[in-house]
């Protein structure tokens, strides 16, 4: 937690001058708020008595009120601006760090978790300084109110404390009842959402059958139940809120009664009686002050979660450019995860398929080849340069990756293909289109509403289309080495055939490492790396390997493995699957 505290402290420093403004206005405002009932009471007493000191009291009163208003205005400004500034600093810093760590980050933190930490948690820490100041200064009027009451009459203070306990009990009872009602309510909501999602999956069927009205009625079946539970929640809200809300005014009335007796006895002035009533209200604010303490606790916990992100080591890049070369890939004594002692040389410009049963380490080998992952031991080099010595730019230009499920990033389709290639220029546009053509994506992209300029969110794509964009992106990047990790699994046979032709033809000069499940892909490659149990079992031509029944079995078993994958892939591999069964 000490690292978390350090982060909160650094955040405080980065809130800038606003934090000092906030601290000053909070303390000053709190003191003035505490002073006001007393000053007001005195002023009224002096005015009614036509005291000669009354102008002084009136002036004091005006000053106090003015200060309170000014402190409020500047406090609101400072807390909003300071929080925004601190949050921005935190977010930018973590953002660069997370991107620097790369995919290793998602191995430790699920995506949703990352978003929460960078989003909500960063905000909580960013508002941390404000919580500290506001929480600390809230104690002044509340504790001060109680003290002032004690000074006026200890019994009044005791009455106040009893009342506060009562509010606490009421709120606790409220929390207990709402959780069960909220559960029913959420289940009714969930029912509607689930049915809607179901119906949307059948959009084409519904459209063709013209059954939209029936579907609407079906989706909204739970509406009466939802209303029932919602009204229960409103009633529960009403009960608790009202009970809690009536306590403070009734306490105030009680204090006025007791104070009134003292006034009648001449022990108290009318102004003091008024002040006592106001101090009851201030003192009852203690609960809110405690709420601020819990906000500070949340900020600390959130800081702890951010520190965990910052502790992940970033990927360090070298400074070397890539020397001239054909794209020869070499792995020497590489050990990482399931892979042990891998020694391989992939000659520049050749195509090599990687096959093996699931869990053999195919994707890991693919990730090692272009430095998406660093090995635990051993060395991977491209044209004689160890990958860690290459600059990020050199790697980006040399290696292109295509995945089974590519995630497309960017505003438009063109952005997604040219991601990381630099600012859009005419030359880049040509590269993007050529890559898209090679990946058989050009045809369908040009049929999108705005062609290459279609925003990604307005271009719904099937798994196969997405893979084609992913392939185009790889082709646009990897001038020397292309790594295809099961990147054609969702393509229909014809399209896959065309992509293979492009890989062998116009892209033939580049080194190609292709993780494959289909026999045809392995057969088309110059050589095949056969992985088994984390080791290279054989590295030879497909024709030679095919004589080994164990090698043939890899493809049959992989057909069964694929049954576990989402149906789309299974169905699209059916031409082969049908043959095998």
């Amino acid at each position, binding site marked *: 937690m000490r690292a978390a505290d350090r982060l909160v402290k650094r955040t405080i420093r980065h809130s800038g001058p606003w934090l000092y403004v906030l601290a000053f206005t909070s303390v000053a405002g709190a003191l003035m708020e505490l002073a006001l009932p007393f000053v007001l009471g005195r002023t009224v007493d002096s005015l009614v008595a036509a005291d000669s000191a009354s102008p002084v009291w009136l002036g004091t009163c005006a000053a106090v009120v003015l200060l309170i208003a000014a402190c409020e205005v500047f406090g609101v400004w400072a807390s909003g601006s300071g929080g925004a500034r601190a949050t921005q600093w935190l977010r930018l810093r973590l953002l660069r760090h997370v991107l620097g760590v790369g995919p290793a980050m998602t191995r430790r933190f699920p995506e949703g978790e990352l978003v929460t930490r960078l989003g909500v948690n960063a905000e909580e820490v960013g508002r941390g300084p404000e919580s500290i100041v506001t929480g600390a200064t809230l104690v002044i009027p509340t504790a001060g109110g109680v003290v002032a009451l004690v000074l006026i009459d200890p019994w009044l203070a005791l009455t106040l404390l009893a009342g506060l306990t009562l509010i606490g009990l009421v709120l606790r009872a409220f929390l207990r009842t709402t959780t069960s009602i909220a559960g029913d309510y959420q289940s009714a909501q969930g029912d509607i959402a689930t049915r809607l999602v179901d119906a949307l999956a059948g959009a084409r069927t519904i459209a063709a059958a013209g059954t939209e009205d029936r579907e609407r009625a079906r989706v909204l079946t739970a*509406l009466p139940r939802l209303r029932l539970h919602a009204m229960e929640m409103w009633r529960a809200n009403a009960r608790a809120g009202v009970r809690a809300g009536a306590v403070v005014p009734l306490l105030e009335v009680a204090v006025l*009664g007791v104070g009134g007796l003292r006034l009648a006895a001449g022990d108290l002035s009318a102004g003091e009686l008024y002040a006592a009533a106001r101090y009851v209200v201030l003192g009852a604010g203690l609960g809110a002050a405690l709420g601020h303490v819990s906000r500070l606790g949340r900020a600390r916990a959130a800081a702890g979660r951010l520190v965990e992100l910052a502790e992940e080591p970033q990927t360090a890049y070298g400074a070397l450019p890539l020397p001239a070369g054909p794209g020869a890939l070499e792995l020497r004594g590489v050990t990482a995860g399931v892979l042990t002692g891998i020694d391989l040389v992939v000659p520049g410009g050749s195509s090599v398929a990687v096959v093996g049963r699931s869990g053999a380490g195919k994707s890991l080998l693919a990730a090692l080849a272009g430095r998406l992952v660093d090995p635990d031991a051993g060395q991977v080099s491209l044209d004689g340069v160890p990958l860690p010595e290459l600059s990020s730019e050199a790697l980006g230009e040399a290696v292109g990756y295509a995945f089974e499920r590519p995630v497309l990033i960017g505003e438009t389709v063109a952005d997604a293909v040219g991601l990381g290639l630099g600012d859009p220029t005419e030359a880049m546009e040509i590269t993007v289109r050529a890559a898209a053509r090679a990946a058989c994506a050009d045809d369908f992209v040009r049929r999108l509403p705005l062609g290459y300029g279609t925003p990604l969110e307005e271009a719904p794509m099937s798994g196969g289309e997405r893979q084609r964009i992913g392939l185009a992106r790889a082709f646009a990047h990897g001038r020397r080495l292309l790594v295809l990790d099961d990147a054609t699994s969702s393509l229909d046979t014809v399209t896959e055939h065309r992509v293979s032709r492009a890989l062998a033809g116009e892209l033939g000069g580049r080194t190609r490492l292709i993780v494959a499940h289909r026999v045809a892909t392995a057969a088309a490659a110059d050589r095949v790396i056969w992985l088994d149990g984390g080791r290279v079992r054989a590295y030879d031509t497909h024709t030679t390997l095919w004589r080994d029944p164990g090698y043939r079995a890899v493809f049959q078993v992989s057909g069964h493995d694929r049954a576990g994958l989402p149906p789309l892939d299974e169905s699209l591999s059916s031409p082969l699957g*049908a043959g095998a069964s």
Partner: protein
Amino acid sequence: MRDRRHAAAPGQAGPYRAVRAALLRDPRLLLRLGAWSVAETAPALVVGLAVARAIDEGFAAGRPGLGFAWLALLGGAWLTAAVGARQVVVAVGSIVEPFREELLDHVVDGTLRRSAAAGHGPGAAAVARSNLQVELARDALASVITVVRSFAFTVVSVVLGLTTLMPQVLVLVLPPFVVGLCLFLLSLPALARRQRDFIVADERTAGALAAMAGGLRDIAACRAGDRVAADVGRQVARQARAGRSLARVTAMRTASLAVGGWLPVLLILAGAPWLVRHGAGAGVILGALVYVTQSLAPALGNLVQGLGMSGVRLRVTLERVLRSGEPPRPVTARSVPRDAAVELRGVTFAYGPHAEAVISDLDLSVPDGDHVAVVGPSGIGKSTLAALVTGLLRPDSGRVTVGGVPAERVDQASRVLIPQEAYVFRGTLMENLTYLAAAPKPAVEDAVTALGLTSLVARLGGYSAEIHAGLLSPGERQLVALARAYLTPARLVILDEATCHLDPAAEALAEEAFARRDGTLLVVAHRLTSATRARRILVMDGASVQLGRHEELLASCPPYADLAGLWNPSDSQELVP
């Protein structure tokens, strides 16, 4: 269920109309709300008066009994308020719950219709998002009703109370209060703008962060970290700017609160000697202060807070929910075609004005009773063709007719489309099977036998078994959809890769069952075997389209020969040299 189509009025109106409609739906509720509001604001009416009289006529005058009586009145007012507040919350709930239902109905209806028109729906995340928007809109409306109403009733009560206490005080209290209120109302548009910008920027930041977190592997693979950091960083900075600018305007709003809430206090004190000359005691001045500090200023503060936050939130969320506007309405004038002959004449279709045509100048004539298979690589426009024939899409030029009737006006029961993604909903197996047309049990059993669902029916435990999509494999879902289509009287059946999750034997059984059925069968083929079963085959390959029999096409159509060579399942093992 009653017809809610007219109830979905918010669709045609802006946020204001939607809110007004929600308020005026049941005037009795408003009356009830008003009556209980009077009770809820009872303390605002008596608080200053009770304090003043309790001091001046009670305790200070040596008559504690009278003082206690006034305080008892005040306590009674607070208890009345407690009862009133409770009823107010329930009344507000009764107003906003129907409002939420209408919004939800609007969202569900619009999403369904738009998805139906587009042929695909948004994902579960988008559904969750729009549900959240509806929830936020409801809460915001409740909060706006609560504060605006409470403000109005409190102001009236305080004015009445002050008039009873000492009318001269009104001269000191009302002018600064009105000025403060006006200042706030003047700052409201700017505040609303900033608040709205902030909400939007916040959502965009969350979206950008989520996209980044989901794409870390791909960003690293493209070494695009710096570029993405810059992009997301810009969004983060934009949000921070929106936050700072909101803080500035909120500070100004707070200033208007100071004018309306604190200035009356100072004026009462400054005017105290004048009030005393008119017979005011200490109690009256304290009572006036109590009215201002305990009722008027908090009511103004709540109004400022409530309108400034919830009001803006209500507008933004309502605009989101209603933005999509009126969803496309189904064609009402449909007619029954004379037969199931399909004709396409010069049909051209593109997905947008700047998009390249998917289908251009296509002529196709499928006589009644024909069996045609459509083949070609994915994304070439086969499903688009199916959608054009079904009338789900309209050609940009040319004509598509079924039995002489334009496709989009064909009676929906006369043709049936089974898409690749089979629709199975929560309900019994029987409800799912008879979704498109009611059918007696023997007919259902015939269909089940013909299409090979017998073992599935047995596994599920009969026709009355409750099913949902997750319970069935993709292939089983397709079987249910096929049996459902088989049971309709439709003479035109369009199978759009409807058997892609079935094994070849099951696919053959299903297609043969449909082929035996009376009428026209159009099959978008997934495997070449589907094509060989058809009487004629339509080959789509980019610009060229050819129609013919299998043997003819093998000889005359190189793309088809190419396809056939790749497609033949028996080749798969022989690809090995």
